[in-house]
C-alpha cells in the first residue's frame, strides 16, 4: 500500500535498460501506484514479462525493444513513447551489466562494453528524455545504480568506474536541469535477491556482514522509487539514496 500523497495516478513512466530485476520490479511498483509504464531494453522476453505485471495492476504498458547503447535507437524509442503516452513524467535508467575480473585481465573490449552498457546507456536515456522533460518543465529521473558507485571492491574495477560515472552524471544534471522542474536522483542498491539464499560462494559470510543479515528484496527498491517520483519530491534532487540494509554504514 502506498501513502495517499505518493500515488502516481495519470503519470507516464519509462523504465529503460537491461538489468536482472528492475524492469519487472520497478514497473510493478510504478503501476501499483497508478502509473502507466513503457519498457525499453534489448531482452524482449524480460520487458514483455514486466509489461504483464503492469497490466495486472490495470495500467497501460508499452514495450519497445531497444539497445540503450545506441543513441539513435534510444531517440527513436523515446519518440515512440511520447507518441504513445503523450509525455514522459518519469525516467528510470536501469542498466546493469556485471563483470568480475582482475583489471590486468580485463580486455579493451570488455572495458568499453562495461562503460557502454552501464554508463553510456544512462547518458542516452537522460539526453533523449531530458529534452522532452525540459519541454514539459517537469520530470523525474532515477538512475538505479549500486553501492559500488561509492565503494571499491577488488575485481570490480570496470563496474565501479561505470557506476561512479552514473552517480556523477546524476549530480551534475541535478544542477543543470534543476530550474526546469526536473529532479535527478540515484538509488544505490546493496545486496539484492529474490530468494532468501542464492547459493553464492561465501554466502554465509556475506549475510553475516550485512547489518540486516539478509538480502534486500527487489520490491524494497520499488517502494523508494515510488516515493522519489511522486509529486512530493520537488525539492529532493542530486542525491544518492541507499537501499542496502545498512551495508554502507559500517567499515
Amino acid at each position, binding site marked *: *500500500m*502506498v*501513502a*495517499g*500523497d*505518493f*500515488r502516481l495516478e495519470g503519470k507516464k513512466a519509462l523504465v529503460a535498460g537491461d538489468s536482472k530485476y528492475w524492469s519487472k520490479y520497478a514497473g510493478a511498483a510504478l503501476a501499483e501506484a497508478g502509473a502507466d509504464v513503457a519498457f525499453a531494453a534489448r531482452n524482449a522476453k524480460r520487458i514483455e514479462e514486466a509489461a504483464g505485471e503492469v497490466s495486472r495492476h490495470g495500467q497501460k504498458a508499452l514495450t519497445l525493444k531497444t539497445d540503450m547503447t545506441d543513441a539513435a535507437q534510444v531517440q527513436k524509442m523515446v519518440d515512440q513513447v511520447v507518441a504513445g503516452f503523450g509525455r514522459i513524467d518519469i525516467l528510470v535508467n536501469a542498466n546493469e551489466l556485471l563483470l568480475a575480473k582482475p583489471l590486468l585481465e580485463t580486455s579493451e573490449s570488455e572495458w568499453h562494453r562495461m562503460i557502454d552498457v552501464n554508463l553510456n546507456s544512462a547518458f542516452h536515456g537522460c539526453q533523449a528524455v531530458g529534452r522532452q522533460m525540459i519541454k514539459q518543465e517537469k520530470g523525474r529521473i532515477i538512475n538505479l545504480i549500486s553501492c559500488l558507485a561509492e565503494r571499491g571492491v577488488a575485481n570490480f574495477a570496470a563496474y565501479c568506474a561505470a557506476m561512479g560515472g552514473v552517480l556523477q552524471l*546524476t*549530480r*551534475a544534471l*541535478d*544542477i*543543470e536541469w*534543476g*530550474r526546469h*522542474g526536473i*529532479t535527478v536522483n540515484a538509488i544505490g542498491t*546493496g545486496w539484492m535477491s529474490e530468494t532468501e539464499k542464492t547459493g553464492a560462494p561465501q554466502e554465509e559470510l556475506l549475510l553475516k556482514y550485512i*547489518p*540486516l*543479515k539478509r538480502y*534486500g*528484496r527487489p520490491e*524494497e527498491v520499488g*517502494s*523508494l522509487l*515510488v*516515493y522519489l517520483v*511522486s509529486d*512530493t*519530491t*520537488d*525539492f*529532493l*534532487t*542530486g*542525491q544518492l*539514496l*541507499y*537501499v*542496502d*540494509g*545498512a551495508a*554502507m*554504514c*559500517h567499515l
Partner: protein
Amino acid sequence: MATGNGTLAGKVAIITGGGTGLGKMMALLMAKEGADIVVAARRIGAIEQTADEVREIGPRALAIPTDVTDPAQVNNLVERTLVEMGGLDILVNNAGIVRGQERRPLWEVTDEEWRIGIDTNLSGAFYCCRAAIKHFVDQGHGKIINIASGNGMRGNRGDFMYGTAKAGVINFTRVLATTFAQDNIQINCIAPGFVNVRELQPEPSTRGSFLTSDFIPVGRIGVPEDIGHLALFLASDASDYITGALFANDGGGLAGGVSPTGYAPVIAMEED
C-alpha cells in the same frame, strides 16, 4: 494533498520540536496516514495547537511539554507515551536550534555556549533514542528519524557547535543502524536544506530571490511539506530495508558546491 491510505494506522509517533515548522508538518502528514501523534517541545501553546489539528484530522494526539536536553523530561515523555497511547512505533528527533552561528572567533566561544549547542542538537537525540530504543527492541520493531543538516556534511565558516553536532547526528544514525539492524529497527537521517518554517504555506516560495538564484538548483527554498513527506516515507513499512541512510532534501545544492553559481562556462573540447 490527497487523502490518506492508512499506511500508518495503529502506529504511535513521537515528534520532538513538533509545535512548529517541520515537526508540525510531519505530525499532520503522519496523522493523515492514520498515526497517533505525541507532540513534544518546550512551548505548551504550540504543541497543543498541533495536537488539536491532529485530532481534527482524526487520530489521537497528546502534547507533552519537554526540554530534550533534560534526560529526566525525555524519559517522562517516553513513559507517558507508552502509558497513555499504549505503544510507541516511530520516533522523530526533530528538536534543535541554530545557535552559535554568530561567527565569532573560536577563542571567544564559552564552555557554556559549546555545551548548549551540542546538547540541543546532538545529546537531545541521544537522550530520546536511549529512552525509546529498549521498547523498540522488546517489541521487535521501530523507526527512528533523526533530523540533521547540510551543515553537518560541509564545514561552514564559524559554524562550530551546530555543524559539529549535526555531523554527530549523521554518524550517530549510522552507528545505531548497524547496532540495531537485527532488532528490526530502522534508523535514518534527513538533512533538510533551506526551508521556510515561519508559516505553513501551501505554495512554494516565489523564484528569483537572492537565496534561490545563487545557491539552490531547483530555484526555490523548501517548504515544510518537502521534508514532512520524506519523514512520512521513512516512518512507513515502505522503507524497511533502508537503514543508516542519509537523505539530503535540499533542492539539489549539496550535489554541487565547488562553483559559486553551480554553472561552468561553456568550453569547447580541444586536444593538442
